[in-house]
Structure formats: C-alpha cells, structure tokens
C-alpha cells in the first residue's frame, strides 16, 4: 500500500522503502544514499560492516525494476564523502554505472558530496526544476519555495500505539514542501520534532511513517519524542 500526497499540485507516490515516485513524469526520487559510508568509517578507523553500499544498490535496483522510471533524481549526499566514489569496489561500481546509464539520471549535490566526478555518468547540478517542483538537497530556510522536494535531514518519528513506541524513518511535509527519508543502509536519523526540521513548517506538518507493508500518515500532534536508544 503506497500513499499519495500532493505538493504544489503535483500528485506523488510515497513508497514504503523510502523513495518518492512522480507518475506524471515517470520520475523516481531518492535522498541521502550515502554510498561508501561503511568504508569511509573503516578508513577513519571504525570498522563498520562493508555491506551497506551493496544493500543500498540492491534496494535501488528493486525500485527501478518495480516503477520503471524514465528519470531518477538523487537528492544529494549520494556519496558519503569525496573519496567514496573512488573507493567503491569494482562490482558496486559496475552496478551503479549500469543503473545510471539506463535512465535520465540527475545527481543533486549535497554537503557530503560537493562535487561528483563527471565520469560516473548522469547530470550534476545544485538544483533541478521540473514543472511545479523544485529539487534540492537541503530545504531552504524561511518561507518555503513552492513545491520544494529535499532530503538532508534523515527524518524519523515516533508514535505510540497500544503501549508500544514505534520509531521509523518517515517523509515529513506540508502542502508546499516535502522532506524525504534517507535511503542509504547505515543512515541514522533526526527526530522530526527537532527544531532543525519542525521549524521548516511554521504552521504544521504531517509525517508518513515507513512500515513493512505500507506508509502510514500521522498528524504532528500524534508524535512523541524519540527515546535516545532508538535515535542511535
């Protein structure tokens, strides 16, 4: 079960795996892939498991096979750091190139990947405007630009249902802008109740929590602060 939402008049589908699909344009949008995060930590001396990049690639391949998009937009922080692209093992590198070549691919630059090597394929840009929507890495401060779609914050939220606290990655938005959850396998999260996120929505906001079977909308007033253990 997917959820629909309307941002600046565009009808969008939220997928439970953390991606956004725009049927009118056959466009798939993902945020914060953080390819090479495990290896980047390992290079710095913390030996996280090396399976994150392959896991993220597999999930992305599954989504592309399911939606068959013409266009894919990666909303920045696609690579965990500037050396991550060069550090990819040969198998991951080949899978990624194959995926990028097959569609109209756009890399939006983020704070983790301020530059992306042209040799990888795909277009590289700071911002992308398509019809009523504007794609960028981090939501602009102050008054929202109409139709802004962004990532960067890795939103998570917690609700209490039948005495159980459920903490999940989520989409967060209002009718004018939408922030996507992080797609990468090791990405942590920030509570949407944190000022950094909630202040983006001066009136009110909703969240759509990612479940196993579907995406579940909740009003902001239904949320609880995330306990630190779950935030870790």
């Amino acid at each position, binding site marked *: 079960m997917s959820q629909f939402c309307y941002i600046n008049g565009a009808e969008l589908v939220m997928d439970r795996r953390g991606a956004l699909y725009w049927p009118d344009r056959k466009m798939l949008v993902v945020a914060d892939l953080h390819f090479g*995060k495990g*290896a980047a*930590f*390992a*290079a710095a*001396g*913390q*030996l*996280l*498991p*090396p*399976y*994150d990049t*392959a*896991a993220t690639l597999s999930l992305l391949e599954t989504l592309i096979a399911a939606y068959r998009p013409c266009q894919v937009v990666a909303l920045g922080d696609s690579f965990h750091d500037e050396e991550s692209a060069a550090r990819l*093992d040969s198998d991951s590198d080949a899978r990624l190139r194959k995926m990028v070549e097959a569609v109209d691919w756009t890399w939006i630059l983020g704070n983790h990947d301020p530059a992306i090597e042209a040799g990888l394929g795909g277009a590289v840009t700071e911002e992308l405007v398509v019809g009523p929507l504007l794609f960028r890495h981090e939501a602009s401060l102050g008054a929202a630009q109409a139709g802004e779609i962004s990532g960067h*914050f*890795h939103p998570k939220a917690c609700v209490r249902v*039948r*005495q159980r606290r459920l903490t999940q990655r989520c989409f967060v938005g209002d009718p004018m802008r939408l922030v996507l959850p992080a797609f990468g*396998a*090791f*990405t*942590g*999260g*920030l509570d949407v109740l944190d000022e*950094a996120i909630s202040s983006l929505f001066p009136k009110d906001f909703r969240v759509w929590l990612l479940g196993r079977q579907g995406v579940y909308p909740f009003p902001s007033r239904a949320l*609880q*602060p*995330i*306990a*630190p*253990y*779950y*935030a*870790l």
Partner: protein
Amino acid sequence: MATATASPSQPIPALPEPFQDWFAAQGWAVYRHQLSMVEAAQAGQSALLIAPTGAGKTLAGFLPSLLTLAEQPRTGLHTLYISPLKALAVDIERNLERPIREMGLKIEVETRTGDTPQAKRQRQRHKPPHMLLTTPESLALLLSYHDAAEIFQGLQCIVVDELHALANSKRGDLLALAMARLDALSPGLRRVGLSATVHDEDYLLRWLASGLDAPDTSVRKVRGDSGAKPEIEILDTAAHLPWSGHMAVHALAEVYERLKQAQTTLVFVNTRAQAEIVFQDLWRRNEDGLEIGLHHGSLAVEQRRKVEAAMARGALRAVVATSSLDLGVDWAAVDQVIQIGAPKGASRLLQRLGRANHRLDEPSRALLVPANRFEVLECQAALEAVRAGSLDGDPPRQGGLDVLCQHILGTACAGPFDADALYDEVCKAAPYTGLSRELFDKALGFVCDGGYALKSYDRFRRVAQAADGLYRMTNPRQIQRYRMNLGVIVEAPTLKVRLKGGRSLGEVEEYFVQGLRPGDTFIFGGELLVFLGIRELTVEAVRGKGGEPKVPAYVGGKLPLTTHLADRVRAMLETPADWGDLPPPVQEWLAQQRRRSVMPPEEGLLVETFPRGEREYLVAYCFEGRNAHQTLGMLLTKRMERAGLSPLGFVATDYVIAVWSLKPARDVDALFDEDMLGDDLEEWMAESSLLRRTFRNVAVIAGLIERRMPGQEKTGKQVTFSADLIYDVLRKHEPDHVLLQATRADAGGGLTDIRRLAQMLARVKGRIRHCRLDRVSPLAVPVLLEVGKEQVYGQALDELLDEGAQALIEEAMSDETVQGLLPI
C-alpha cells in the same frame, strides 16, 4: 574493617610484635581466618576467603602483605587490590593508612581510579606504591600501557574484594583476562579472593585457581565464622494490605515509627523511583525532625559522598537507598535494615542485611515490608531461605566474546603480541577455559579488520600481522580510541540536573527528560522540581510548590525474582500447613483461592481461564520473573493469534502472566508446548528490541561503535549511524559474524530469561492443570489490577480505576457474582 572485641587479652602468637601491640591497643583480637590467610601466604599459596560481612575480611586480605612488607622493606608494586567500587578503594586506603602510620611502617598505599589526577597517575606508572588499590577497568587501562611489564614486574599478590559480585559478570570477564595477563608478566603471583557467603563456592574457587600451575591444590579455601544469625521480621501491618503496587505507601507510617526506635537505619528499596517516593513520604511524616538522607545511582557523586560521609560520622538516623549501597563502605553504627518491597533473591537480601551491625557477635536486625500480597509470600520465602542458609545461584556463564575483543585490542595497545601465546593465555582465564581456537581467531579477526567475510578492508586494518609473525597496532590514534571506550558497563545516556543558578543535583536518563515540557514537575533528589528546559546538556529546574509530580521513570532497576526464591514461593503455596506465619488477610486470600479454584502446584503449572466483560482471560502462574514472562507473553499471543483466538493484550508480573482475547483458550497444553521456543522464538528474538539493545552493548564493548557521551547525538545535525541498521545489515549478510554470535550468547544464555522459560516449559510438560472458572479467581486479582495501569493518565481516570479495582476485589472474594456492577 572493624575486628571483633572478643577476648582482647589473648596473646596473638603468630604476629610480630608491632602488630601484636597495635591489635592490643585497639582492643582487638585476630580472627582465626585472618591467621589462616597469613599461613596461606607464608606457604606461598593463593587463598579464597568466604566470610560474612563484619568478619574483618578486608584486613584478612591485606594482613599477609603488611607483614611481609614490614619485615622485608622493598620498592616497587607488591600488592594490587581490586574493588568493584571506587568508593570502596578510597575507604580502604583510609583504613589502611591508620595502622601503617601508628605502627610506623614504611608502606605506601595509593588508589588509582578515574578520579585520580593525571599527574599522580603518570607518577604511579614509573614509581608505583607498594599497594595499589584500583578497579577492574583501571587495571585494564594500566595493562594497555607500553610499560605495563615494568609496572607489574615484581608484583607479589592480587587481592580481589567482593569477588562474588564480580566473578559471574562481564566485569569479571575483564578482570579474569587481566589476571591471566598479570600472571604472564609476574609469574608466581599469589591470588587472594574475598567473598561473601555464596551458593556455589566451588565456582569461585575454580575462577580464582584458573590458569595456576596446580589449580586443584594451589588455592586454600578459608572460611570465616558465620557469626550470629540475623533476626528478620516481616512487618505485620495494621493498615489494609494492598493487592498490587510496589511503593508500600500503606506501611510507611509504621516504617517511620521503626526509624524512631533504632539508632541508625538503612532503608533499602528496589528502584530509584521508589526511593524518591519513600523518601518524600517519610519526610512528610517527620515531625521529630529525624535526619533522613537519600542515596541512589542518579544523584550527583558529591551528593552521594556527602550522605556517605554523614553516615560515617553517625550524623544520620536513616538513609533511603537503592542497590547503590548494596556494596560498599562499612558503617559500624547501622543497627537496623529495612527492606521495602520484595527482596527478589535470598542472596541479595543477605547482602543487604549484612549492612547492619558489622560485628560478628551481634545479630543484624532487619524488617521486611512487602508492598502487596504476593510480596508477602516472597518475603516469607526469602526469610525462610536466609534462615536455612540456602542461597541463590546463577549458573556460571561463558566469557563474553565482546570482552575478549576489547582485551585483544588492549593487548595490542601495550605492544606486539604473538597470537598463539595470547590464545594460551586467554584460555587460562576461568570464563574462557573452553574457548575454541576458531572463536578466538574470529575475535582476533574482528580486532584486526572487522572480521568480515567480504575482505574489502585489508587496507584499513587496526591491528596487522608483520613479517615477524607478531600482531601490531597500525595507528597510534587507535590507542586513544581504545582508552576512551574501555570498560564493559554501557549506560543509558543521561543529562545533568541543575537548579537554576545553583548546584548540580545528579543525572537523569535523557529519555525521561525528552518526555518533559517546560513547566512540568518531577521529583528528583527528594525535591519537587519544575522543568525549565535543557541548556548545554544540562536540565535546568527550579524548586516547585506542589501539583502532581512525574516521578523519574528510570531505565533498569527492576530485578527479576530468582529461580531459587520462586521455587520456595511455589512450595509454600502448595503447603497450607506453612501458611500459619502469614498475616491473616493473606491467609484468607489463599483460603479463598483454594475454595474458588486450586493452588498453583509446586511441580507443574496452573492455568486459569475465565470470562470477564466482553473478554476471555488466561492467567498462568509461572513464577519465572517479569522479564521471562514478557517474552512468554509475546510468544503466547503469537500462537493464540494463529489459533484464531484473537488475543488483545497481555500483562506480566514477577509471578504470573495474564493474556486477554476475544475467544477462550481451550487446548492449553498445545498453547504451552515446548516448541514455542523454536521457530517463533527465533523469529521473535531476531526482531526483538532485546537483541537490538544487546547488539548495541556488544558493539560498544567490542569496539565497533563508540561510547556516546551524554547528549552527543544532539550536537550534530543527526546521529551519524544507527546500531539498529548495522545489526540488520550484518544479520542479513553475515549471520555468523563474531559480534552476532556474542549477541545471541548474551541474549539467550547470559540474560537467563529465555533459559528460564525453556526450563519451565520442559518442567510443566504434561503437568499443566487447566482450571476453567466462571469469574476471576482471588490469586488472579493482582495481575488484573495491573491491566490498564500503564494506559491511564490523569486524576479522573485514577478514580475510575480505583473504583474498578475495588469492584474487582469484591467480585473475587464474594461468593455471589456481581458481574453486572463491574466496569470493564
């Protein structure tokens, strides 16, 4: 360290003159077991001393070293003393310093803990004192220095205090590994263990002897006199004995009267929230202005030290304390211990009783105050267990693989090592005697490059094997990282609590603070506080003036009932002849249960089912502790769902579990079949927060992820990565990774709850007594009162709940059903 006053005039032939004179000047005699410890030392033997509190145990541990150092002055480290508590080390230093000074001995004694100033710690490394008093963590840190071999060469003796509290835990694993290392650095080192009375003495003996040349004969077991039997009494309250709840507020007026009658009382409770409430309540009654203090693990260290110091001076009449005072400094003045709430275990009760009257020749006096009816049974069972000298025993556990990883990394910090030699050394530590080479190599692999099957981290090795075959640290920054993350205690993150513009009161879990809104009130440190906000990792608050407080809901502090005590409660329930000692309301309650249903059998399992309102209830009297019951609840509801019974929820106490559903359970034998622990458990365990939390702790101890400082995740834009996601990815791609093995071992074996469930299901197979009733039974009332408790907020609802509770009790106790009057 007080020693008995018995027969002061008796000469002490075994001791040299200055010692004899000093003992005589104190009016003390030497205990037989103290002399045995000296004899063991003179024979070059290691020794395990088992003696109750107040037997001069610590002096017995130090006496041989004092004698040797007095006779043969020398330089360098001679004796290392390990205590589970920093405060204990500090107190021992003070207590040793006096006899050394008064006898004019040239013996240096120093402590070394996290609180020791940097300069002093530096100096201790190149010029150590004769006796160094420290903790397992500080010892591990010392061993990670490149000059560890020089520091410890010539070490003659290691004394482990409160061995019973350390041995069967991860801290014990860390210490055992450190001791194996020490044995390699200074061969022939004598080991001395000091322990309270325990269930399994042989385990401690093996723990201590492990790795020694002749483990069967090299440790002498010395037993102290058992002293006077403790006098324990259960409060026979004049107030109405509650059906549920854990605060025992009904009895606090009587507790207050007892405080007035004694000189100094330790009031033990089980949780920090309980401590706050009992403390507040006692002060409300305190018309006589008794000096009553509060002591628990969340209070600021200075605050706790102040209370301890006041206690030592005899300036307090009572202290309300949690397990923060279970171990620790001896206070001779304490003449009464009051335990509020169920003791949860016979050994724990005995430990707490031992805090009163540190004199062997006088009995310690104790009062047990059960908070509800089931706790009366538990208190009675514990009292009988203590009288019979029968204690709880945890089965020995295997050493943690995560602790092993930490130890290997620490070894690498100290210098190059040979893997074969290290493996042999590790196997000498008691918890690791059966460790396979394969598992050791997996741990070593993890330390080197993460140990992943996908060999992509070759270039990022932390520790690498060089051409000479030795393993070396590749990067000095990793040494720093190891030291920052050392230790096996992983705490929930906490924030400091500070009065606005004033002093720091202590720490609360961040989780609790996040639930507070500015203006909310809560009780902390015995005061009602108003929450203002969080500023720079500190909770700002001002004193409040009333209103309903939110009491800190602390993580932890809920100990499950021990198996041993549970067995005793079951036996008591089945034997009406033993009920005579119970208070009349409890006798009446049990008699009603016998009339209306049956008593839970000692062997086997009673399961009652009955309708109530629109629902069907199933109550099982397992007595396996709350944690095990929680797991059982998950598994039962899953199975009931498959059977089409539509379960709606469950609630677990230490004694029973209740599940409610739309349809009644008929085939109870099938529901409780042993195979519940097969696929369902695997699936549930993999998804459960228990395993996730366990994995996080394992990952921190092993050095995969770093210890977080309080509030750290707030400083970045978002947390850097999620332990949960690492767990998921690892489980999917490498289910046999050493850290997942460690996690499963911890959750399945170490935490004992699953094992308890397995044992119970096997025990009751074919012996389940299913009682179909037309309404709730008397024994089921307490657990049903727990239903809904967690779901209700605010005062109006509380009143409703109270009415509901009253009706429920009448329904159970009366002979006529009044179903129509009951709220659902």
